[in-house]
């Protein structure tokens, strides 16, 4: 079965995910792909504890994520996959992870980034990674919480329609 949601969110696992989207999508597992978190015992403990015990959680490096998703786990579980940036998604897609749609839930302000929605700020690298995803036919939706009207990221960035 397909991933129930692939989400870019620089706050990683937080309330909008563990309560808001979980309520609507009912995933069996929340999978966080982040080398930075997966390589720190303390950060890993924090993010694993952000999820209540009645749902499975994984915190994995990029390579571990690719291996897990390629191992048949997708056939058995409804997974919500979280990444911190468009760049990480390009790496996953180029490694063969099947992704057809991306939810962009939060890319917050940092110096040198331009705002395209109240909760999405991008720099040139983000835009070029979004373009790579768009050119592969992947739908890019900006939406922080389920009840919000989705924003078409490709249109907001003036990409040519595929």
């Amino acid at each position, binding site marked *: 079965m397909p991933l129930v949601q692939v989400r870019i969110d620089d706050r990683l696992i937080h309330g909008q995910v563990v309560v808001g989207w979980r309520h609507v999508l009912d995933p069996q597992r929340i999978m966080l792909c982040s080398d930075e978190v997966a390589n720190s015992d303390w950060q890993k403990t924090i993010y694993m*504890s952000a999820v209540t015990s009645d749902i499975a959680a994984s915190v994995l490096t990029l390579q571990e994520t690719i291996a897990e998703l390629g191992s048949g786990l997708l056939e058995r579980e409804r997974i919500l996959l979280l990444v911190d940036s468009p760049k990480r998604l390009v790496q996953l897609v180029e490694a063969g992870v099947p992704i057809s749609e991306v939810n962009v839930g939060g890319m917050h302000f940092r110096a040198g980034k331009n705002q395209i929605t109240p909760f999405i700020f991008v720099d040139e690298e983000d835009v070029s990674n979004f373009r790579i995803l768009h050119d592969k036919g992947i739908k890019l939706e900006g939406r922080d919480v389920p009840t919000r009207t989705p924003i078409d990221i490709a249109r907001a960035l003036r990409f040519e329609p595929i």
Partner: protein
Amino acid sequence: MKHAILLTHGPIGEALIEAVRGIMGFDEGLHALAVTDMSITEIASRLSALVSGPDERQDGVLIMASLRGGSCWNVAVSIASDYKHVRVLSGVNLPMVLSFITKRESLSLEALAAEVQHDGARGICLLSQDKGC
């Protein structure tokens, strides 16, 4: 649809509802009543009006008071005893309100009150390096 009343000392209830909106994107059926500087009689009459409001509230009303033993809780438990469709919990926190709003459709009022209590307690955690929560 079941409703909840956040009956609190100061504007905690309104702030909790604002937080729920940020997380869920909706807040239907949540009401806040701050009891600052109100007499017991006034709290009671405002609460009664909220509890017995429009017909749909007959589906159930969960009052979440800020402090067990506080004036808002005292009034709430006494009012609840007059209505079959009202339950009262104390110690309201954000996990409780989120639990209420995500589980109210699938549970009876009785079961929902118990579940909200459980989720509220589970939301309190002293994170430890080796054991997590």
